[in-house]
Each structure stands twice: as C-alpha cells, then as structure tokens.
C-alpha cells in the first residue's frame, strides 16, 4: 500500500474514471450536440477553395490533412494567433518559463549546488509545473484592511501591462509582430511608465508598512531609471530617424547599433536590470530589510501572476535590447530552405503521391529570423541573470545617485556622440554611408 495515498484503490480509481467518461458523454450528447447543430444552422459557413464548408466537408478534411493546411495558414496570419500564440503571449510565456528554469539551474551551478533535481526525472525539468500547481492550489489571502478592488486588480494589471509590452516586440521579418505602430518606441516608453503606478497602487492598497515602503522604493527606483533609459535610446532614434521598431531592426542589416553606441547599450542594460528589480537593484523586494517589499501581502496565484508578469517583462526587455542594439532578426542564413520538390511534385510514399497545397507554412526568412532573435534574446537574458550570483544588493542612496547622476550624464554624452556621427556624415539611416 502506498504511503503517500493510503486510501488509494486501483479499482475505485478505474470506476471513477468510467464514471466521469459516462457523464461527459451523456452531457455532450444531451447538451453539446444540440448546441453544435443550432450553431451550424445559424452561422453562415465560409467558402474555402470555392467550396462551402459544411460539417460533412469538415469531416472529410479531418481524414485528409492536406486540405486543412490552407486553413491553418490563414489562421497563422490572424491577429488572434498573433496575440495568443506566436509573437505574443504563448511564445513569450514559453520563453519566460524556460528562463525561470534556466535561471535556477544557472544560479545553482554558480553556487556549487544542483538546483531543481527530482521533479520530472531529467534534471528537475518539471519543477516549474509543480510550482505552478502549488501556487494555483494555495489559498488567496486578502488582508482585512486592504483596499480590496485595487488589491485584486493589481496582479492582473501587472500581467496585462507586461503582455502589452511583449506585443510591441517584433520577432521575425514579414509582419511577425502583434502591434506595429509607427511610434513603437514611444509606445514602449508609455508601457514601461505604467509599472511604477501599478507597484504603488498595489502597495498602498495592501495597507501594510512593508508594502508601503517597498512601493515607494519601487517608485523612486523606476522613475530614477526611466529617464536614463529613455535618453539612452534617443541616440538610436537620432541615427535611424524612425520610432518604428521593425524599421529600426531593418536599419541594422549590415551593422548593429551596439557597434556605434556602446555607451548607450551599457546604460540601457543597467536600466533594464533596475527596471526589472533584479539584484543588485532589488531594493523594492529586499528580503532582509522589508520582508518582500510591495509583494508582501500577495499569496497563491496572485503572487504567481506577478511572477509571470515579471518574467514576461524580462523577456520583453531582453527582446527590446536585441531589437535596438543587436540587430533583431538579422543574421546569416542558417535555416535550410524548404525542399522545392515537395511543393512541385508532392510527397511520394510507396505507391501514393500526395500533392499538398500551401506546404511551407513558414517561409525560410521567418524561421531564420526567429532563430536569430531567440538566440540573441536568450543571450541577453542570461546576461541579465548573471549579476544575481555575483553582486550584493545596493542601498537606496547609491541607487538614486547611480540613476540621477551617472547614468543620465552617460546618456547625454551618448546623444552627443550620436549627433557627432550623424553630422560628420559617417552614419545615416541604415548604417554606414557608403
């Protein structure tokens, strides 16, 4: 008998499973099928390849996957897919989850530990899933004297703002970006500007001394570092003459901007670490001083949402660094081209030859660009994670001194360098002037 679940009986488990299957089938046939038919009756079905999509046709397509490919291809270019899956939330959340795992293993190796090891057999790869399940199953405790609506909405706002930030990052050539406004960089600044407001709101709403101090610290820190952050990016805007992030990436086809504006990149990198509240700038969450700062009162999935938002923000900042300084998706073509015979002649398996329409779901440039973007972004993320194992936390006066004196000064110097390069005729939009 198992010691973990002493009441466990296999027969009862199977019985409960069959029970569940029975009820699901019953409810589906009684409620689900009528609803499906009612919907099919009222909805005007689309025309695909000059054929009306009837339920019967859909059933035949299920048997012939080649005919579903055009639909999938259309789906890939819808805003729905962009927001939910590829350049948007799903892709970012996947990278964020990988980041959490890599951070734990990376830090463990630095500190001569093993890190997560048991969950998921292979090097604790399922640890994150276990943590997530734990957070979901925990009770959400709301302080009695908290301002409840704002306290509830805080984590959602945080994830929402982080998601908005993610949506502005162009990932691959050919319109693989959720939102592509012509003033993309201004939109980024506007999104970043929301984070201190959320921190202060939730900190104040929790009605706790530690959250209050933490929220004020977060406000001080983010405002002190937002100005050098914006100033450091002005040189890029001066050199490229555009605020659109996709155009900024396209201007780096030959030279990355980090070559010409290294000071800007350094200032921006330091500001990233400060905006993300990571060591050495984790004052708003300084554990030994103010418990957990502005996150003190969050429990269960509310804390989980904040963590998710933090890592989405980390991905977005790393992506922004890649886009602005490391050339975004530009890189040598390493992805193999799609074999041309499959498109022209189809696939031959034994006696059967299948001609599948619209087969290259993604073109070569897009896959190549995504590969380079991910490689560069992961590199930047690892660099952002590195200081956590090396530095202690700094003090608030040192932090403000760094932000208001040193970084702003460096950012201004950098603007003059950019102007000098521009007026000396060395650089113009698109890199070196030949």
């Amino acid at each position, binding site marked *: 008998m198992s010691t973990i679940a002493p009441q466990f009986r296999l027969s009862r488990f199977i019985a409960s499973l069959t029970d569940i299957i029975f009820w699901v089938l019953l409810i589906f046939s009684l409620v689900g099928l009528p609803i499906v038919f009612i919907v099919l009756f009222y909805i005007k079905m689309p025309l695909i390849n000059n054929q009306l999509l009837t339920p019967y046709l859909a059933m035949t397509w299920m048997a012939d996957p080649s005919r579903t490919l055009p639909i999938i291809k259309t789906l890939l270019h819808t805003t729905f897919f962009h927001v939910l899956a590829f350049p948007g939330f799903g892709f970012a959340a996947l990278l964020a989850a990988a980041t959490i795992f890599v951070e734990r293993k990376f830090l463990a190796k630095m500190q*001569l530990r093993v890190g997560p090891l048991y969950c998921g057999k292979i090097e604790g790869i399922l640890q994150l899933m276990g943590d997530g399940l734990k957070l979901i199953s925990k009770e959400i405790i709301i302080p009695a004297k908290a301002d409840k609506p704002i306290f509830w909405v805080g984590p959602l706002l945080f994830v929402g703002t982080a998601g908005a930030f993610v949506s502005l990052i162009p990932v691959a050539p050919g319109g693989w970006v959720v939102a592509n406004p012509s003033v993309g960089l201004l939109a980024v600044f506007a999104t970043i500007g929301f984070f201190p407001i959320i921190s202060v709101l939730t900190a104040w709403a929790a009605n706790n*001394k530690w959250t209050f101090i933490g929220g004020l610290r977060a406000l001080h820190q983010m405002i002190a570092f937002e100005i050098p952050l914006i100033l450091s990016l002005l040189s890029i805007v001066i050199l490229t003459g555009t605020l659109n992030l996709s155009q900024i990436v396209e201007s780096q086809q030959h030279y990355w901007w980090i070559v010409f504006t290294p000071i800007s990149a350094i200032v921006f990198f330091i500001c990233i670490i400060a905006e993300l509240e990571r060591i*050495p700038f984790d004052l708003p969450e300084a*554990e030994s001083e103010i418990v957990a700062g502005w996150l003190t009162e969050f429990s269960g999935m509310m804390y989980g949402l904040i963590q998710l938002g933090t890592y989405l923000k980390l991905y977005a900042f790393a992506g922004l660094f890649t886009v602005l300084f490391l050339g975004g998706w530009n890189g040598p073509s390493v992805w193999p081209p799609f074999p041309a015979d499959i498109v022209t002649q189809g696939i031959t398996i034994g006696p059967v030859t299948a001609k599948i329409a619209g087969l290259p779901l993604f073109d070569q440039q897009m896959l190549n660009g995504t590969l380079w973007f991910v490689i560069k972004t992961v590199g930047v993320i690892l660099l952002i994670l590195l200081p956590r194992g090396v530095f202690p*936390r700094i003090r*608030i006066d*040192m932090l403000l001194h760094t932000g208001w004196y040193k970084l702003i000064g460096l950012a201004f110097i950098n603007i003059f360098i950019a102007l000098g390069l521009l007026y000396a005729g060395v650089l113009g939009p698109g890199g070196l002037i030949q």
Partner: protein
Amino acid sequence: MTTQLPPGIQLEKVDDRIMTLNVGPQHPGSGHMRLIIKVDGDYIVSCDPDPGYVHRGEEKMAEYRNYIQNIPHLERPVIHDSSNILYPYCLATEELLGIEVPERAKYIRVIAAELNRCIYTLYWLAIYGIFLGHSTMFMWPAGDRELFIDLLEAMSGARVTHAYLVPGGVRNDLPANFEERCLRQVDYFEKRIKEYQAIFYKNPLLISRTEGTGVLSRTDAIRLGTTGSVLRASGVNFDIRKKEPYDVYENLDFETVVMKEGDSYARSYVPYLEMFESCRIIRDAIRKMPKSGSVRTKLKPNPKGGNDEVYKRVESGRGALGYYIVSNNRPEPYRVKISVGSFRNLICMPYLLKGELLGNMPAVYWSLNYWPVEADR
C-alpha cells in the same frame, strides 16, 4: 472618555513623520528577536532591540543536574559553536573538582574549538551574505562548512551538537589517521575561503555598501563593553587566547587580527581573517600534539565540588564567553552564570543604528556577530 491604562504603561506621543516598524520576530531579517525601529523617511531615528524570544533557562536547568549531566544541554545556546561554549564550563569544572587534564586532551580540545570556530564563522558569514542580498555568499560558506563538520563528526560522532569536551579532557580519542585527514581538509578549506575575497570582500558594491556604515570608535567600543570581533574591528588588540591563554594556546603560533576602521566592513572582515589564524592554530596543534596518551581523566561517580566559586572565560566565535560557577558541597552546581559575547555586542546596536538608513540595518545588525539564541540562553 479616556481609557484606563494598566499601571506602568504610558502612551507614546505620536509624531506623524515617524513610522514604527517591528522587525521581527517573524521577519526574514531579524533572527529570533525583535527590533523596534522608528524611521523618519528612510532614516532610522531609534532602534530598540527586544531579545528574549528563545529564553530557555539554561542557567536554572544547570542547577538541577550534576556536572556531567550538564554537558549536553549547555551547548544548546550555540549549537554551531558547541565546543567553544562548553570550553569554559570544562575549565571551570576542572578547577572546582581539582582534575588534571592530560596533555594530549588539551591539544585535541584546541583543535576541536578552532574547527568549531570556523564552522560558526562560516554560518555567520552565510547569513551576512544573504542579509546583503548576496546569494552566492550564502551558498558557498554553507557548503564549505561541511569540510569541518565531517572532521568533527569523525572526532565526536555527532555533526552539530558534539558534546565532545567534557570535564577532564575530551570524550574519546581521535580516530585513526585523523591528523592526515585534518591537514588535508584544512589545506582545501584555506583554498576555498581565499576565493571569498574575489566574490565578496573585494566586491566594489559590497565595499561601497558596508564601508563607513555603523562606525564604532575605539573609545565607544571599550566603553560599551563590546567583545570579540566587534572590539578587534575597532582597533583594540584584545583576544583572550593571547591575553589570558588557557590550555595550550600559549604554546601555539598565531596572531590577533585587528582592524582600525570599526565599520560594518571591518566587523565582517575580522572573523574572516581569523579563520586563517584558526587554520594556523590547527596545523600547529597537530604538529605539537603528543602522538599517544590518555585523553580523559576519569571522574569519580557523582563528583562533588567544594564550597567554592570559579570564573573562567574563553574566546568564542562571538567574543569572550565566561562561566561563573558556585558550588556548595553538592553534586550539582549551586549557581551557573553564563556571560556571552552576543548579549554584550547587542548593547551597541541602538548606538550604531541611530541615523543610519533602513537599508543599512541588516548590514550593521549582523556584523555585530550576534547570535540571538545565545544571548537569551
């Protein structure tokens, strides 16, 4: 309507600018105690340490047990430094009962005490690291402690609470080949702790953060009665191992580490440098130790102390640690008073924290080499 207050309780005058923070007892940066801190913005106006949450009445318990039964529970206040907290008890009991300690046992005691001092210092350093937000400095010392914990486990059989030092010598002799193993581990240990320099003590952020914070001048250090590394970091050359040598410390070759600055950085650096001196002592003791002989003078059953009183003190990981034992012709001591370094160093905390930033609180607090459990006894 005014509420009738209980006698002895006064209402405090409330200032809108001042916020009172209860750091502890349930706070990740407090230890087993409470600091009542009042802040004006980010500056600490006053700090009132409130120990006593882990008072266990060790002194009273000692009055109901005989001299041998007292050994295991008297090491509980500082289980990481258990050899050093038993050391003065053994010295005092030996004087009370008139026991001679074999020469080999004296050296073994010194080795055990120095190993334990290193274990304690590493544990303290680990917490100092995480208090400053340096997680690598938490993991490395916590891992390197294992080297010496393994040695003491081989010596005594227990990993943390050794109860190795007993009145009359040590509990049992060293295991076979202990000397070689010990020298090997000490060499590797020295190599390891040299690496802390690069990542922690020479770290520019740490230096700018802790240098000049919580400065305790030489005169203040003496006037407030601080002891141990806090005293030596303020420029006072005082080490009981040198000034009042006990057992065989006078034969051994080591130096006292003294720093002049008296700030948080110096207070954290002195115990670190003392670990190198400890390694020196261990090597020297192994060289000079008699290779064979008895390690324990057997006591009579239920030994009785005379009508006498005795005070002995040693240098522990946190400073002077003294036992004052009064006996009245009975198998149990009449009174045991433990004077610990932790409590004496705690006294200067309100002086040091006044006017500091809140962010300096952990750095100053833990640099005082203060162990709450020991202070409460």
